[in-house]
């Protein structure tokens, strides 16, 4: 793609590679995909001291050049120059964890045998010395025959030195391959010998991590801690978001007021106020809540807790025939099912992986949050149920739990039927705990915010505009007994669809909102906002009211509850279907997924509605 020299970052998982990549490239990153495979390509720009740019690519972490998953395959193919869409790197930066030399050096030796110009980044030297391990980089450099730079990526230590070494490597020099000393065990022994030579001082390891793990991995306390963390996370989504949401709402209100005053009553004003500001605004308002959710997930990942959570959950995962590894893609799916499904690539067993993909949409993604939030806000009183626990947060928590329980049951059934096979496995390294660099977390949040706002500006905007068009035409005749919504194209379609949805308590407006919600779930909210905004046209007083209040006027409680239940299983958005098709190589599994989710959503909403009605709610 460019004539800049290409440098690849390569190393074991948990060597701190991504933190080093962030530190070297800053926010100038480009995410993409390798052609033909669905492995993410992370590239960034690095400037040398003389201003020359270098393209730096962050390869997926792997333990050896003998791949066991598609990600690891890409790493091997890139460093061998066999990956389509990627040049052979001009130089390698091999990242090794200073406190795990034996293991990481073995892979480093494999990489050195390739003969590419190489520099070794001896990363996380601070954590190693915290653990009582002092190393001599000079000895390591002499033994390996390449420069070794001690770094602390999260504190930006050693980066200038590393940059300087990369610069030296890129000046043409004959590269020398270090021959491998033989088979796997011989390489291992050599790695061990070098590691031993490089150690200056060593005391028994990992006191801090071991101490925390005694509680975090305890079968009882650990589980309480995990549940507690998740609970705090969902409470925070509400508690921390109030102020910023009020700000965004205020801004949207001022904006639509200004447009209403500036323009004469007519199609353009209706388009801007009802379609654009009300529609898109009703989704953008959830940005604070989505960012809070992502903040927690990024923190869990960066601190090293995520693998612990997988460890705690593995017993349960095994019981429904899944791999403990599936827990990480599933937890990511709380943010969005698309990266979650892509993250299943770390699961080696194909049946295991397929099951995980099929249940990933049952994890409550952040796009469902706006739907939950608006309905809960309207129908569930903001009461304290004691101990400072809010009823609204509690209901939200229950909805998430319903999704999880549903997913487990579906997995159990799938593993006994369509994805029958050997039970999964769980083999993972547990990284040391570490405090993430605030900048890395902020960068992650920023990337998420951009993605969300892009969606709001494109898919959500387009769906909202199309829906507004379909709702505004044809115009109902003056003094007609039929309302504008009922008279419009969309209203007529919804009235047809309503025959099927009426038994489960859905009204026409819901039927109407469900169609564009296939594009993105949160559109259901903007769709409802547009419908009620158009319906209220004649009545200025009604227009002033929030969407929540309007819903409360129009929906009985059982309908609202059924709507929530529907969205626990809601047939997923088009992006999820597309990524499932790509990951499973065909239409068979995405269609199966859509079918079973529709059936479940219908049944769940129906049961909720009938139960609530019978209970007299």
């Amino acid at each position, binding site marked *: 793609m460019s004539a800049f020299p290409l440098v690849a970052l390569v190393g074991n998982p948990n060597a701190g590679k991504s933190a080093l990549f962030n530190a070297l490239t800053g926010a100038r990153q480009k995410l993409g995909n390798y052609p033909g495979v669905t492995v993410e390509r992370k590239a960034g720009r690095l400037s040398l001291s003389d201003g020359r740019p270098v393209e730096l690519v962050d390869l997926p972490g792997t*333990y*050896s050049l*003998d791949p*066991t998953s598609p990600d690891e395959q890409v790493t091997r193919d890139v460093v061998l120059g066999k990956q389509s869409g990627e040049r052979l790197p001009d130089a390698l930066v091999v990242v090794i964890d200073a*406190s*795990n*030399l*034996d*293991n990481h050096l*073995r*892979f480093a030796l494999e990489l050195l045998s390739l003969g590419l110009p190489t520099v070794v980044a001896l990363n996380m030297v601070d954590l190693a010395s915290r*653990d009582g*391990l002092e190393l001599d980089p000079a000895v390591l450099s002499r033994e390996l025959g390449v420069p070794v730079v001690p770094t602390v990526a999260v504190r930006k230590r050693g980066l200038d030195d590393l940059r300087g070494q990369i610069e030296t490597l890129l000046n043409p020099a004959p590269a020398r391959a270090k021959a491998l000393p033989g088979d*796997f*065990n011989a390489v*291992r022994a050599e790695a061990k010998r070098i590691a031993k030579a490089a150690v200056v001082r060593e005391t028994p*390891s*990992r006191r801090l*991590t*071991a101490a925390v*793990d*005694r509680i975090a*991995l*305890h*079968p*009882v306390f*650990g*589980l309480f801690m995990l549940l507690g963390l998740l609970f705090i996370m969902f409470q925070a989504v509400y508690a921390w978001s109030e102020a910023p949401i009020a700000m965004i709402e205020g801004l949207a209100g001022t904006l639509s007021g200004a447009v209403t005053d500036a323009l004469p009553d007519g199609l353009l004003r209706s388009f801007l106020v009802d379609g654009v500001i009300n529609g898109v605004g009703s989704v953008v308002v959830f940005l604070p809540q989505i960012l809070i959710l992502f903040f927690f997930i990024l923190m869990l990942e960066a601190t090293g807790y995520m*693998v612990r959570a*997988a*460890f*705690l959950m*593995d*017993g*349960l995962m*095994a019981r429904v025939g899944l791999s*403990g590894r599936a827990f990480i893609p599933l937890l990511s799916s709380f943010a969005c099912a698309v990266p979650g499904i892509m993250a299943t690539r770390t699961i*080696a067993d194909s049946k295991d992986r397929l099951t995980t993909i099929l249940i990933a949409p049952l994890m409550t993604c952040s796009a469902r949050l706006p739907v939950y939030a608006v309905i809960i806000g309207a129908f569930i009183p903001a009461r304290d149920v004691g101990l400072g626990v809010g009823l609204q947060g509690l209901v939200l928590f229950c909805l998430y739990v319903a999704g999880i329980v549903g997913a487990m049951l579906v997995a159990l059934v799938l593993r006994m039927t369509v994805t029958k096979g050997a039970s999964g*496995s*769980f*083999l*993972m*390294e*547990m990284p040391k705990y570490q405090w993430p660099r605030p900048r890395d977390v902020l960068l992650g949040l920023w990337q998420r915010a951009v993605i969300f706002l892009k969606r709001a500006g494109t898919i959500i905007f387009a769906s909202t505009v199309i829906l507004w068009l379909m709702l505004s035409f044809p115009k109902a005749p003056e003094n007609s007994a039929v309302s504008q919504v009922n008279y419009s194209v969309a209203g007529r379609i919804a009235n047809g669809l309503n025959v099927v949805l009426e038994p489960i308590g859905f009204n026409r407006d819901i039927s109407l909102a469900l169609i564009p919600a296939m594009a993105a779930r949160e559109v259901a909210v903007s769709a409802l906002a547009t419908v009620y905004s158009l319906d209220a046209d004649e009545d200025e007083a009604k227009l002033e009211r929030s969407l929540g209040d309007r819903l409360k006027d129009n929906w009985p409680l059982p309908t609202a509850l059924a709507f929530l239940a529907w969205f626990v299983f809601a047939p997923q958005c088009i992006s999820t279907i597309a990524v499932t098709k790509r990951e499973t190589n065909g239409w068979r599994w995405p269609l199966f997924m859509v079918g079973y989710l529709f059936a479940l959503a219908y049944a769940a909403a129906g049961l909720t509605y009938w139960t609530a009605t019978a209970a007299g709610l």
Partner: protein
Amino acid sequence: MRLTDLPLRQPAYVDMIDWNALSATDGQRLREFGLIEGADVEALHHGGLLGRGPIACKIGRMTIAMRRAHAAAISVRIGDRDERA
């Protein structure tokens, strides 16, 4: 004794691994983690209620988690490797 029976925080070393009981990929991953005959090993945590969860153990300076089925394929001996005959 099997790794599943090893008391927690009791230093031991790997005596024998029944590679046939492991799938090829799982076996490879274990070797890459440094879990081979002769390696020092210490069980740290048993996960899950009712003792059916995975086991976390220390191999060198690394902590890895594995299921009981894998741990059962690994025979260990109590003691320090360097002290054995």
